[in-house]
């Protein structure tokens, strides 16, 4: 077997995996999902989902990469050659997500620069108008509009940053994450300390944590919990398999998975305190109920937060700290997705890391230009919805089937227990064969039913077809082509 590059140390791998898992969603998704689904009561299904789906699937993805010493397509193709298509599908979904994720980071660059002049100050409406102005937002997905040059510049800087980090492979990644993983945690702590000292903060925290236990009886809350765990842990992208493939075969698996999962969930929980203390302050400052200022996703980061920060003493510094937090949270996830794709392509054709990274980053930048146009936000929203619901979840489901029903959980479990700090028991077989695929299968069916009943966010059907189903179909076709075409000689001899 040809020489495979290695992580410099176990902490480097763990930090990289934690950095990949902790992303923008921990800050702008988890707190809102918790708030809308029973507050503190949501934490119960969330922890159940973490234990019954998140951690078992993470152990599986780590084990595949480390055991077969290959990225996602190669590892799944080692179980059965046709299963490589699942791996390529995962990388295709990851690549698509990286195209718009980099655009969101482009917005963050722009807002970091604007932090010092605070052009959004003057209330929520001003901030919303300013956001639309920066994006040159058009009236809908059908009106592409012009390119936003500041966002394009931010996109270029983001891709250049990603390329610089991954061009030397995991050795440089291991060094970068020693800064980019602890830094956003420290900055979030800084914003939290500022937030809880403001009037109204306690009211915000009460809204975040006050449990409504009756919500637990609703199927929706459980669906949301499984979805949140799944999206947050970087499962289904092929990232974890790629990262684990750079570990020696005798490295720990189960404890690394527990550490990564607890760190990710712990950060999300902690970020909720920061977010809701600031929302509580904003509601009090504007004299409105919290429900009127609560918003998730980009609206939270680029409208609500800037509005709240502009009302605080020392606003420029706090705004800069916040947008630097977004950038450092996002970059680890962004380059891990790209590294997963680059690793898969490099494994297949034996190309150099530098050339593959450069080629993919240029391609990613060019595709990402769509998201810098006036209609970019609409397309981003549509593509994101489909990638999450019909990309990642389906891949997770298929991974469970491939390992649980074709490779055999016992065989993989024996290997995991041979190398790990602590043993996993019968529960892992049960989750991988039954519980996790059933939970994910339920999520897929529920999403399809919802899609049929109500068009997503009221977008026109043609836009949902083009940005949703057509993108999903295109990725599957590309994955099938990548599986069918021959790779380098070593791979062909191994029957992949």
């Amino acid at each position, binding site marked *: 077997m040809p020489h495979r590059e290695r992580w410099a140390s176990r902490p480097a791998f763990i930090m990289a995996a934690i950095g990949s898992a902790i992303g923008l969603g921990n800050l702008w998704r988890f707190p809102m999902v918790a708030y809308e689904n029973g507050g503190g009561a949501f*934490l119960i299904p969330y*922890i159940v989902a973490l234990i019954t789906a998140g951690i078992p699937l993470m152990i599986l993805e780590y084990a595949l990469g480390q055991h077969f010493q290959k990225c996602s397509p190669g590892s799944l193709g080692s179980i059965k050659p046709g299963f490589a298509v699942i791996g390529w599908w995962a990388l295709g979904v990851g690549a698509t997500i990286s195209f718009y994720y980099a655009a969101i980071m482009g917005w963050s660059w722009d807002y970091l620069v604007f932090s010092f002049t605070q052009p959004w100050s003057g209330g929520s409406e001003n901030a919303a108008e300013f956001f639309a102005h920066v994006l040159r937002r058009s009236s809908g997905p059908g009106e592409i509009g012009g390119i936003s040059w500041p966002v394009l510049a931010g996109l270029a800087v983001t891709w250049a940053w990603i390329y610089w980090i991954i061009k030397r492979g995991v050795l440089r990644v291991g060094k970068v994450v020693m800064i980019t993983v602890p830094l956003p945690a420290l900055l979030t702590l800084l914003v939290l300390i500022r937030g809880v000292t403001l009037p109204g903060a306690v009211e915000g*925290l*009460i809204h975040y944590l*006050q449990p409504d236990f009756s919500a637990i009886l609703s199927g929706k809350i459980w669906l949301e919990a499984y979805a949140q765990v799944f999206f947050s842990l970087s499962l289904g992208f092929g990232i974890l398999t790629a990262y684990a493939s750079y570990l020696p075969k005798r490295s*720990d698996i189960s404890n690394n998975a527990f*550490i990564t999962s*607890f760190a990710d969930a712990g950060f999300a929980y902690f970020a909720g305190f920061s977010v809701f203390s600031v929302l509580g302050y904003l509601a009090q400052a504007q004299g409105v109920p919290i429900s009127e200022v609560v918003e998730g996703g980009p609206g939270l980061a680029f409208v609500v937060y800037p509005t709240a920060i502009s009302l605080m003493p020392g606003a420029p510094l706090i705004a800069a700290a916040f947008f630097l937090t977004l950038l450092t949270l996002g970059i680890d996830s962004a380059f891990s997705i790209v590294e997963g794709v680059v690793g898969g392509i490099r494994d297949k054709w034996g190309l150099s890391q530098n050339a593959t990274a450069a080629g993919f980053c240029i391609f990613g930048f060019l595709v990402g230009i769509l998201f810098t146009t006036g209609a970019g936000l609409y397309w981003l929203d549509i593509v994101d919805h489909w990638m999450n619901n019909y990309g990642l979840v389906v891949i997770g489901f298929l991974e469970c089937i491939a390992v649980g029903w074709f490779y055999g959980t016992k065989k993989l479990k024996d290997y995991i227990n041979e190398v790990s700090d602590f043993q996993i028991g019968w529960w892992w077989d049960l989750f991988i064969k039954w519980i996790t695929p059933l939970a994910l299968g339920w999520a897929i069916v529920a999403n399809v039913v919802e899609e049929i009943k109500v068009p997503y966010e009221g977008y026109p059907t043609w836009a949902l077809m083009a940005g949703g189903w057509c993108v999903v179909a295109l990725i599957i076709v590309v994955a099938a082509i990548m599986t069918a075409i021959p790779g380098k000689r070593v791979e062909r001899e191994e029957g992949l």
Partner: protein
Amino acid sequence: MSASAWTTSIVVALILYGGFAWCIRVAVRKGREEHDKASRGGAGTH
């Protein structure tokens, strides 16, 4: 905040941060054992 909010928050924090700390402790202990084994002439694997 109500008693139920406090209880849920504390239990969740104990599970997440306690679980994280315990796993790190196990990893550090195993790392030390490997290191000691390697320095005594054995082959470390982790």
